[in-house]
């Protein structure tokens, strides 16, 4: 039976580069599939592009490709990546320059565009698209003047075309994570765009592997202490067969593990209704998925079904949503908790005096209630407590307001209750971007593929 072997190279911008480097050396793969984008990433990259037309892609693509490309070209491994982010064309130009620098002339780099609809919003709204928020139902007008980007989660079609035209490297913008895998599956196994019975399993398998080390022992909750050599963790190496079945493995000799338990944890990660796992290419039904250990570090995936893709594509819009100001300080025994309360009260009186305005304030005690919150966890009111770390965070409309959280906390160091320490250096003010999820009819979105030779 025909098959294709896909390697997971990267799971997010800034991810560990070693698994990909080890994989191209030691595993037998046909494709290296690299996901560089998360929900927030597109807003950050759009901001970069607005300042410099040559930026707006994830910078880690350069060190990644510098490491893996010579081996990929030698072994005929093709790379599919969404590192293009908010500027796929600039990313492709940078990759072409890198190929020339590495002596890899002749490398064919394809760039897939068409996901960026920021400049088409008026046109699309005139055509009847509302872009109402799918979670809240609110109209786009409530954030329109604060939008920073608008990108469609596009499917595998552009990637398939790029591969058919002989691309060695395919650079995309906001395609879905699944499309990075479905593209090579469709190209190699000849699946048509409406072969739901195969695309469903393909998308389900892609979901299990697209977060890299989270399927191979990273974050494993079902026995974390037994997971070995995570510093040499292997990312998923997955063989997909023509009938849609797949075997997930990892780089030979690497750390971590591929077991029914490790894959199960990733299977349930970021899934809503498993019976309707929506992607741009197909709706997968994961309800009756089965996982079977078929060898050491080998798990077979079966039982996934497919249904037609939704008529609409999801759009990720980002909008400016204010700033976060933070301060962190520590109080020590004796009476650490009471001193912390006095410190917080002093900070709040100082903030009031400074005309501070915020939309929301959150106070957490690190090491005690920072993960699940003070609503669920009793206050640490023990006079013998050795130390308490306060994190004070506020969401503000302006950076000027957000900055006050830190500046007004500085006097706690020498003007407040005894036992204060650990006041850090001035933290950066974080600008917030809200995500506006909405839909667009798929027939209004057209991908374009351009091929450049290094």
């Amino acid at each position: 039976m025909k098959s294709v072997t896909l390697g997971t190279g990267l799971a997010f911008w800034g991810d560990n580069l070693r698994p990909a480097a080890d994989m191209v050396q030691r595993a037998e793969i046909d494709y290296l599939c690299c996901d560089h984008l998360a929900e927030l990433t597109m807003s950050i990259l759009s901001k970069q592009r607005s300042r410099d037309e040559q930026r707006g892609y994830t910078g880690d693509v350069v060190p990644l490709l510098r490491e893996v490309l010579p081996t990929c070209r030698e072994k005929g491994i093709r790379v599919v990546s969404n590192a293009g982010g908010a500027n796929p064309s600039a990313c492709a130009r940078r990759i072409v320059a890198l190929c020339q620098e590495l002596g890899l002339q002749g490398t064919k780099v394809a760039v897939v565009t068409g996901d960026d609809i920021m400049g088409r919003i008026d046109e699309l709204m005139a055509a009847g698209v509302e872009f109402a928020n799918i979670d809240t139902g609110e109209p786009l007008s409530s954030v329109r003047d604060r939008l920073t980007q608008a990108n469609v989660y596009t499917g595998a079609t552009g990637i398939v075309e790029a591969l058919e035209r002989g691309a060695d490297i395919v650079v995309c913008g906001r395609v879905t994570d699944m499309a990075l895998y479905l593209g090579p599956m469709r190209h190699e196994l000849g699946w048509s765009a409406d072969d739901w019975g195969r695309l469903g399993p393909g998308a389900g398998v892609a979901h299990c592997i697209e977060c890299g080390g989270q399927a191979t022992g990273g974050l494993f909750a079902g026995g974390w202490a037994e997971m070995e050599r995570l510093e040499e963790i292997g990312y998923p190496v997955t063989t997909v067969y023509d009938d849609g079945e797949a075997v997930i493995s990892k780089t030979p000799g690497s750390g971590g593990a591929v077991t029914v338990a490790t894959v199960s944890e990733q299977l349930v990660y970021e899934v809503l209704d498993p019976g309707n796992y929506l992607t741009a290419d197909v709706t997968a039904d994961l309800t009756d998925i089965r996982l079977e250990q078929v060898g050491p570090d080998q798990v077979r995936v079966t039982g996934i079904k497919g249904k037609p893709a939704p008529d609409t594509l999801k759009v990720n819009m980002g909008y400016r949503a204010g700033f976060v100001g933070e301060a962190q300080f520590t109080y020590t025994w004796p009476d650490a908790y009471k001193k912390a309360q006095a410190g917080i009260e002093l900070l709040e009186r100082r903030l009031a005096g400074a005309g501070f305005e915020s939309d929301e304030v959150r106070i957490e005690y690190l090491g005690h209630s920072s993960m699940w919150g003070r609503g669920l966890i009793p206050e640490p009111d023990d006079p013998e407590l050795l130390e308490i770390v306060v994190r004070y965070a506020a969401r503000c409309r302006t950076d000027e307001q957000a900055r006050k959280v830190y500046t007004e906390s500085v006097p706690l160091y020498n003007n407040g209750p005894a036992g204060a320490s650990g006041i850090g250096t001035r933290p950066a003010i974080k600008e917030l971007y809200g995500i506006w999820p909405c839909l667009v009819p798929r027939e209004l979105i057209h991908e374009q593929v351009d091929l450049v030779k290094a």
Partner: protein
Amino acid sequence: MARVRIVDLAHGRSGDKGDVCNVGLIAYDAPGYEILCREVTAQRVREHFGDLVKGEVSRYEMPGVRALNFVCRGALNGGGTLSLRSDHLGKVMYAWLLRMEIETEQPS
């Protein structure tokens, strides 16, 4: 009646989609899955998370892998990109659910 915590019967993982946090539980064995299906209802999960989850909780079953998936709405303080929480992506929400106490035997 024997009382255990879910952590004795299952492992899990959680993640974000906007302001939705999903928490997946995977039972270590078939009897454990049966107990989870009986005891860990959407309503009980909603109560266990208290003010951490502001919206509805839905439960989905994946019997072939002995998993339950809980979709918790309004669970991330406005969503991962806006949240003031240190755990803004809901990465450790599963651990709080593993602490829930349940009965292992059916009431007679």
